[in-house]
């Protein structure tokens, strides 16, 4: 198109002017952009630098290794073993089900537990790590690692898991660990962040539970650089976890193992203590169970078979079980009488088989009566009438006071679960709890450890230690924590005249060494190893007058749960006591026939430090004992020798 010169110049001028305006606008915009850059990059640089660090740095908790638990000789009772697990975070996984399906083809995992893990994962926040499977074999673990690209969100990890090498032998002492439940967090108020990590396990029973704070240790921190998917790019810094404290118990593994085996399948318990130090060498409760089941996660069937067993394997009967102490209580009544000065040791009381109190008759266990009894006879033959008479002179207050001095009716707080306090009744207690006045009959029943009196096997062992030493022995279960002594090393005197204790000890000696003693059958014939003790047979039922007329049903003919408890307390060696024992066989029958032999065997095992020689037993028993030894399923000697527990 033809344009005039003027037009062309006008056009050019206009374009120049407009392009200048546009250029100016562009420059202005450039200025704004530069100002914004300056604001972000210079003025707010520190803020954004911080945000960038938060973006890329994640702090992971490093779980501490749980403290180990040893016996008194250094035998490992609770160990940590490597546990191969598979952990999943669903945050960045598009198709969780497809991934889980692939995983189930790679490792051997049952669908029920996988579904449980899936539900757990879906219920929690997307970034929470959830364990899909644990205790994998090395091969499974390796194949998960190899297939990692096909398994987004899944990481194979190595953790530590608790293992109890002696299984059922220590279930009632060492206890077990288990997962952190919501109930645990609520009931303990424990806010340690390490509890939130998946698979972290805390002590749930016995020493593991009670010493939790000492055993747990402190979590470490791991600072890692992560990308937006949370994948770790590199480790920046590491603060190592502080492992938990190692615990040394007073328990003697060999003795504990022997005690569990000796109790066998009875519903029974036994405590062995060192009389001078109060150190508990064995706390056996039978039947027992494998604590490793609880670590792995016990199945419903396994758990209900434990809870439905009438012998109550889950109960630690040594500290939780409360029984009428029966005749094992008679030392208390006798000492109370001596202290009150209402009886002399040589003074005799005549037993005709019963005492009449108002319209009630209180029978001696021996229907025909014992005849004339002094204090030693009253103990060795366990004459009830002697104590009925004595009780009426002393009164319940003095008996109860003596019982408490000897360590009964008080909670000996060993670091175990459910430690119970026995009951030494008083007038006030009966009025408050039973709503009735104390009557003399109650005193008579209490004098022979029946009626309202209740004691745990641990209390009875403490009582025996106190009788043997004359000091206020308290039981000890923990020797050292991280090598630091945790025992009490001295005990005050009981302030019971030696003469009184000597009478009692003589009575206890004659129980097992005098021909007419109730436990003469359980005597030890090896010189220097003799034992002293006291039998007890405590009634679970009340025998009515009508029953007595008809003839008392023999114990063996009763249903199991109504039979008498068999008890025995004792110490040895007689001359220089070192060990005290208490044995309770629930509904076992007579203390002399059932409990005393067990107590004898435990004391011998403690004194010899290994299986006692047959020479320690009366000649007539040796064959039977030998057979019993052969049939006992004991720890191999190499295991015990490895820590010098048994002479090589």
């Amino acid at each position, binding site marked *: *198109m*033809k*344009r005039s*010169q003027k*037009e*062309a110049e*006008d*056009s*050019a001028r*206009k*374009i*120049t002017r*407009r*392009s200048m*305006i*546009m*250029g100016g606008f*562009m*420059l202005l*915009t*450039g200025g*704004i*952009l*530069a100002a*914004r*850059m*300056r604001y*972000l*990059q*210079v003025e*707010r*640089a520190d*803020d*954004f*630098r911080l*945000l*960038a*660090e938060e*973006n*890329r740095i994640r702090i992971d908790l490093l779980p501490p290794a749980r403290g180990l638990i040893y016996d008194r000789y250094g035998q490992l009772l609770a160990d940590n073993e490597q546990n191969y697990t598979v952990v999943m975070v669903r945050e960045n996984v598009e198709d969780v089900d497809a991934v889980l399906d692939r995983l189930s083809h790679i490792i051997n995992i049952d669908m029920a537990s996988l579904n449980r893990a899936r539900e757990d994962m879906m219920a929690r926040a997307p970034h929470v790590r959830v364990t899909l499977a644990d205790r994998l074999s090395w091969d499974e673990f390796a194949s998960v690692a190899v297939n990692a690209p096909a398994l987004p969100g899944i990481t194979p990890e190595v953790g530590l898991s608790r293992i109890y090498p002696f299984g059922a032998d220590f279930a009632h002492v060492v206890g077990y660990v288990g997962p952190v439940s919501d109930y645990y967090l609520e009931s303990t108020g424990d806010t340690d962040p390490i509890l939130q990590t998946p698979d972290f396990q805390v002590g749930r029973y016995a020493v593991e539970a009670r010493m939790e704070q000492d055993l747990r240790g402190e979590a470490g921190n791991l600072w890692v*650089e*992560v*990308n*937006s*998917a949370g994948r770790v*790019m590199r480790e920046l810094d590491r603060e190592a976890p502080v492992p938990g404290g190692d615990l040394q118990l007073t328990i003697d593994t060999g003795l504990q193992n022997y005690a569990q085996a000796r109790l066998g399948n009875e519903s029974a318990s036994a405590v062995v203590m060192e009389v001078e130090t109060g150190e508990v060498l064995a706390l056996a409760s039978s039947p027992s169970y494998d604590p490793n089941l609880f670590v792995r996660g016990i199945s419903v069937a396994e758990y209900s078979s434990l809870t439905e067993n009438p012998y109550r394997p889950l109960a630690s009967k040594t500290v939780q079980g409360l029984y009428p102490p029966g005749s094992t209580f008679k030392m208390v009544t006798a000492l109370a009488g001596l202290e009150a000065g209402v009886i002399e040791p040589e003074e005799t009381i005549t037993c005709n088989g019963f005492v009449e109190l108002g319209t009630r008759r209180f029978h001696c266990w021996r229907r025909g009566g014992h005849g004339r009894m002094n204090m030693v006879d009253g103990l060795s033959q366990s004459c009830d009438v002697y104590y009925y008479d004595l009780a009426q002179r002393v009164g319940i207050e003095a008996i109860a006071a003596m019982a408490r001095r000897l360590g009964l009716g008080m909670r000996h707080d060993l670091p175990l679960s459910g430690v119970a306090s026995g009951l030494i009744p008083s007038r006030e207690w009966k009025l408050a709890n039973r709503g009735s006045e104390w009557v003399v009959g109650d005193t008579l029943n209490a004098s022979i450890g029946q009626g309202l009196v209740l004691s745990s096997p641990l209390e009875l062992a403490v009582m025996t230690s106190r009788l043997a030493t004359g000091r206020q022995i308290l039981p000890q279960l923990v020797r050292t924590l991280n090598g630091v002594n945790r025992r009490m090393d001295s005990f005050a005197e009981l302030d019971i005249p030696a003469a009184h204790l000597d009478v009692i000890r003589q009575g206890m000696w004659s129980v097992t060494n005098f021909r007419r003693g109730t436990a003469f059958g359980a005597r030890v014939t090896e010189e220097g190893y003799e034992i002293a003790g006291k039998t007890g047979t405590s009634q679970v039922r009340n025998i009515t007058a009508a029953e007595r007329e008809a003839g008392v049903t023999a114990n063996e003919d009763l249903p199991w749960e109504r039979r008498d408890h068999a008890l025995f307390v004792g110490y040895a060696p007689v001359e220089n006591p070192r060990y005290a024992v208490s044995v309770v066989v629930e509904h076992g029958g007579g203390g002399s026939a059932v409990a005393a032999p067990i107590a004898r065997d435990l004391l011998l095992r403690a004194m010899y430090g290994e299986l006692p020689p047959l020479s320690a037993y009366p000649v007539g028993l040796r064959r039977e004992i030998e057979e019993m030894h052969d049939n006992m399923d004991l720890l191999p000697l190499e295991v015990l020798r490895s820590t010098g527990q048994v002479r090589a």
Partner: protein
Amino acid sequence: MSYLEYTQKATPTGLRKVLYLNWALILLLTAVACVGFLMLYSVAGGSMRPWAGPQMQRFTLGLTAMMIVAFTPIWFWRNVSALAYGLSLILLLLVEFFGTVGMGAQRWIDLGFMRLQPSELTKITVVMLLAAYYDWLDIRKVSRPLYVLIPVAIILLPTFLTFIQPDLGTALLILVGGAAVMFCAGVHWAYFAAVIASAGGIVTAVFASRGTAWQLLQDYQYRRIDTFLDPSSDPLGAGYHITQSQIALGSGGWTGRGFMQGTQIRGDFLPEAQTDFIFPTLAEEFGFVGAASLLGLYLLILLFCIVTAIQTKDRFSSLVTLGVTATFFLYFAINMSMVMGLVPVVGVPLPLVSYGGSAMLVLMAAFGLVQSAHVHRPR
């Protein structure tokens, strides 16, 4: 003075044209492209693959295309501008019906050896046709309503087609790029004022009516607009990009964390770091100094282009150059504003730096037009 009046003696011919190229502009473009190579290398974690290598090849291809366009007389381009515009419209329609869906939008046609993105091409053809139109139009008629409606239609047709792909960013570039040509051609400023005022009025009305009985949009549409305008209201969705982008920018500080040391990019926190969000990476690794330098390079390119536009007395040459300049400016201004949180996120790449084939080629060809105008200017 039209091209017909050029004295053929005054324009260089043959290989002599090489001497008359605007070499400073070529140098600046190459410098910006090199910044791109460097950043793509860094984003890939210190590797030529998958981005830096192909980007270099494309830049070489782009340089070649620029030379070819530059050596072709500018009046040829004026003559084919209507054809080019028509062709690009047809391609846009083809994309609408046969295009490949990528990233939720129909944007390209797969030609086998490359993916053609017609909307990129359209940015330039609109500018060309508008320049040719105003070259043809009597200067005195420029502001007459009828003659204003024609270029408006030229602009709105491809804008609409691009918008429904949907590609908001490119649609915006076509619209504002075309408007810039109209502005430079001398259309009365009152038109622009009216458009801006009425657009502002509509926006105000839409927002003012919210929550009243005569509300203009549905509630969900308002919520969408909210998210668009304020991404931080949706921190894990739309807001995530912009938050991470600002963190990257800000944590660069004065001098940056150093080449290949950006934690935002190393950790994949910054999405799309090779395309729309490449600027924060540069800012993180080279700091304010690096980011401002790139801005400086861009402004220098604008300066050289505007000077070219003023120097040439040919109306088509001037307007095409100014249109290309405006488009180029919009590219980097929108991209930088977007990553710095000044405007909502729309998909606009950083010119010559972001990874992308069509955009690079078309942009280099457009600079070829500027070069052609420079070489063939009347002397």
